[in-house]
């Protein structure tokens, strides 16, 4: 007879998905709650830096595109909160944990969007890095998370393409536009690399996540993929690569790259980025300002229900 734990590991090893009603180790459940909710918070907070430019997009076309993209990110947040809720937690609690700072979101969104070129750089590099990670997560062992990833990946590719298209327009435009594109690349390249998390040796959650197949590839492997795929994209734009130590390594078949500034990474994670406070404050404000809508819906619902009971009693 197999113990529940053995049966769980048998499924994991056989590449079978774990579904909500299956037995699972408590640590697996907690690990998933942490990772998926953090992912959900990132989608939602990620709307802010881009939302900053919707009213100032340079054309109606660009504005419609950006609006659509930001709308998608809100939807991604919803898919992921719903997936987290299958693990027996309440969405309100998850949101409270994010607002109190107890739960994290991707550090990249604590950087400001200073120019219109940042919108291009974000779509291209930030969504690009997210896609590398999310493609890998389509094979995660938890069914609802995997299905959310498959749905999200389908929607993501337009995000990266619109960003890169915007970068082409700027990089092939006037000298001032090209300089703006270069500046955005310089500021977003390194934070995009940080999105994959610390080196494998330093990653607190990695080993267990790999055994349980919550994560399928390590931080460093995913980062390498992103570094490699981005080189020809920078070349095509005719921009200077921000990493001066970047060198093709024929033996490895990959690019070697310069070291990431990990001090900056931990500094931003620990709350000292440019926009950490602003992002959370804005989220709290939007949430509180929306309270009357939720209250009105509850009141309307109660009224409707009272009406039907009355009608039923009258009949």
């Amino acid at each position, binding site marked *: 007879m197999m113990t529940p734990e053995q049966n769980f590991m048998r499924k994991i090893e056989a590449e079978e998905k774990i*579904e909500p009603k299956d037995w699972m180790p408590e640590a697996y459940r907690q690990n998933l709650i942490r990772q998926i909710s953090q992912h959900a918070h990132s989608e939602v907070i990620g709307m802010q830096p881009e939302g900053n430019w919707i009213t100032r997009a340079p054309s109606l076309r660009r504005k*419609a595109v950006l609006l659509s993209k930001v709308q998608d990110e809100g939807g991604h947040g919803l898919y992921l909160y719903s997936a987290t809720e299958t693990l027996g937690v309440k969405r309100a609690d998850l949101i409270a944990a994010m607002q109190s700072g107890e739960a994290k979101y991707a550090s990249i969104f604590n950087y400001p969007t200073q120019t219109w070129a940042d919108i291009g750089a974000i779509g291209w590099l930030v969504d690009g890095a997210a896609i590398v990670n999310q493609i890998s997560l389509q094979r995660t062992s938890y069914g609802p998370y995997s*299905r959310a990833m498959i749905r999200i990946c389908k929607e993501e590719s*337009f995000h990266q*393409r619109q960003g890169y298209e915007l970068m082409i327009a700027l990089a092939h435009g006037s000298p001032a536009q090209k300089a703006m594109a270069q500046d955005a690349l310089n500021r977003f390249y390194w934070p995009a690399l940080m999105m994959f998390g610390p080196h494998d040796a330093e990653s607190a959650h990695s080993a267990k996540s790999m055994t349980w197949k919550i994560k399928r590839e390590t931080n460093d492997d995913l980062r390498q993929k992103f570094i490699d795929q981005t080189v*020809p994209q920078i070349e*095509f734009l005719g921009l200077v690569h921000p990493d001066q130590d970047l060198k093709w390594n024929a033996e490895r078949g990959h690019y070697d790259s310069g070291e990431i500034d990990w001090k900056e990474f931990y500094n931003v994670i620990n709350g000292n980025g440019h926009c950490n406070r602003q992002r959370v404050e804005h989220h709290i404000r939007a949430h509180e300002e929306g309270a009357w809508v939720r209250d009105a819906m509850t009141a309307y619902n109660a009224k409707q229900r009272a009406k039907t009971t009355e009608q039923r009693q009258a009949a």
Partner: protein
Amino acid sequence: MATDNLELYEVFVRARRGLDHKHVGSLHAQDAEQALEYARDVYTRRSEGVSIWVVRSRDICASQEDDSESFYDPSDDKPYRHATYYQLPEAVNNM
């Protein structure tokens, strides 16, 4: 036999772990528990699934096919929501 107090249930089956539950049909039953047993007997006789959901048909809220024009119309004029809308040069078209 009293059949008029039987409820209509919709049946959803998950064929394999990792897949979504898919609607396969409906049946009449006295309650949810019975509906599950019936569903097993009539919809998974050949091990078609690893998990069954049953939902009372009257609990399902459905959009109307006749309204679909106005319901979905807002997305029809937004081709830029699709990746193919963005024409990129061959050298970088693999994103």
